C-alpha cells in the first residue's frame, strides 16, 4: 500500500501463517495441508489473505467469492475449525500467534481446494418449496401487518451460504437430512401470513429426514453469518408440526 492510498491512518500489519487444505482432482494426490506466510493489515479479512496467496504466491488456489462483505454467501469455509464466511472474519479477531487453518465446509464433496459441490444443499432447499404459494390474485399488494411481517423477519435474512448445514453433526453423518438451511427457508414461508401452503411444507419436514433429525446442537446458530436464530426457527417448525402454525 502506498502512502497516498492509505485510508484509515496507519494500519498495523502482521505476518501470519495460513494452513490451507488443498485438493486438486487432477493431480492424483490426496487432500493435504499446505502452509503460506502472508503479510496482512489490521483491517484484512481471511478472504484478503486468501486473495494475497492466490494473487501473489499460488494462482491455483481455488475458492468461491463474490461480494466480499458477507451478503452473497459464496465463501463459507472452515476457519480454525468453525464455519465462517472468509469475507466476514477479520484476521485480527483470530489468534494471530497461531497459524490460521482454512479448510472446506464439511459434509459436501470437495471439488477442488475450498470449493465443494453445493448441489445437494441446493436440492434440499428446493425440496421444501421455498416460494410463496397463494391462490388469490390481488389487484394491489396483499395487506400484512407489521407484526405478521415481523413473525418471519429473521429467516428472510438467509443467504444460502451453507455454513449452518455443514456445521451440523447430523448432516455430516446423514447427508440425507434436509439440514438447517432448508428448514430456515421453509420457516420463512410457513410463518408468512400470506402463504397458504404451510401444511404442505410442514408435511415435507415431518419426514424421517426432516426436523426430527435435529439434535439441537446449535452449531448452525453459531455458524450463521447472518445471525439467524436457526435452532429456534427449527424448534418453531417442530411446534408447528405438532400443534399447527401459530
Amino acid at each position, binding site marked *: 500500500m502506498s502512502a497516498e492510498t492509505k485510508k484509515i491512518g496507519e494500519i498495523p500489519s502482521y505476518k501470519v501463517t495460513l494452513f490451507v*487444505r488443498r*485438493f486438486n*482432482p487432477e493431480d492424483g494426490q*490426496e*487432500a493435504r495441508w499446505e502452509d503460506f506466510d502472508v503479510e496482512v493489515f489490521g483491517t484484512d479479512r481471511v478472504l484478503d489473505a486468501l486473495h494475497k496467496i492466490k494473487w501473489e504466491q499460488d494462482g491455483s488456489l481455488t475458492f468461491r467469492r463474490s461480494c466480499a462483505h458477507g451478503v452473497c454467501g459464496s465463501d463459507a469455509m*472452515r476457519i*480454525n*475449525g*468453525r464455519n465462517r464466511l472468509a469475507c466476514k472474519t477479520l484476521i485480527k479477531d483470530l489468534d494471530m500467534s497461531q497459524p490460521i*487453518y482454512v*479448510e*472446506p*465446509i*464439511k*459434509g459436501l*464433496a*470437495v*471439488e477442488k481446494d475450498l470449493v*465443494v*459441490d453445493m448441489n445437494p444443499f441446493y436440492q434440499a432447499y428446493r425440496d421444501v418449496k421455498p416460494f410463496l404459494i397463494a391462490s388469490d390474485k390481488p389487484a394491489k399488494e396483499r395487506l400484512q401487518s407489521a407484526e405478521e411481517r415481523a413473525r418471519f423477519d429473521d429467516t428472510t435474512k438467509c443467504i444460502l451460504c451453507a455454513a449452518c448445514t455443514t*456445521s451440523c*453433526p447430523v448432516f*455430516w453423518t446423514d447427508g440425507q437430512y434436509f439440514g438447517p438451511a432448508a428448514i430456515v427457508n421453509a420457516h420463512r414461508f410457513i410463518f408468512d401470513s400470506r402463504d397458504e401452503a404451510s401444511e404442505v411444507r410442514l408435511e415435507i419436514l415431518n419426514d424421517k429426514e426432516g426436523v426430527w433429525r435435529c*439434535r*439441537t*446442537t*446449535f*452449531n448452525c*446458530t*453459531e455458524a450463521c453469518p447472518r445471525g439467524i*436464530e436457526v*435452532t*429456534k426457527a427449527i*424448534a418453531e417448525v*417442530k*411446534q408447528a408440526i405438532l400443534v399447527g402454525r401459530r
Partner: protein
Amino acid sequence: MAKLPAGTLYRGKVGMWSWVLHRITGVAIFFFLLVHTLDTALVRVSPEAYDAVINTYKTPIIGLGELGLVAAILFHGLNGIRVILIDFWRKGAKYQNVMFWIVVVLAALLFIGFAPRHLAHVFHWNV
C-alpha cells in the same frame, strides 16, 4: 473424482459438546440397562443365583463404575430436561447456554451429595 473432506475436529461450542456427552451417556446407560435387566431377572432363577451375581458387583472396581454410571445418568437426565425445554419453551433456545451450565452445576451437586455415601457403602466405611 470429487473427494470427501478429511476431518479435523469441528470446534463446536456448548451445544455440540453437550450433545456429544448426551449421546455417550445415553449409550452407556443403555448397555448397563441391558445387563441390569438380565441380572435382575435372576431373582426368578433363585435367590442364590441372584445374590451370587450381585455379590460380584460389590467389588471396588464395579463400585467405581457405578459411580460413573450415576454421573452419566445425572447428566443425561438433567440435560434431557434442557433439551426438552429448548424444544418446548419459547425462550429455551435463547437460554440454552445458561441452561447447560445449570445442568452441569446441578449434576455436580447431586453427584457430590451421592459420591461420598456410595463410596462409603462400597468400601464399608462406617458412616
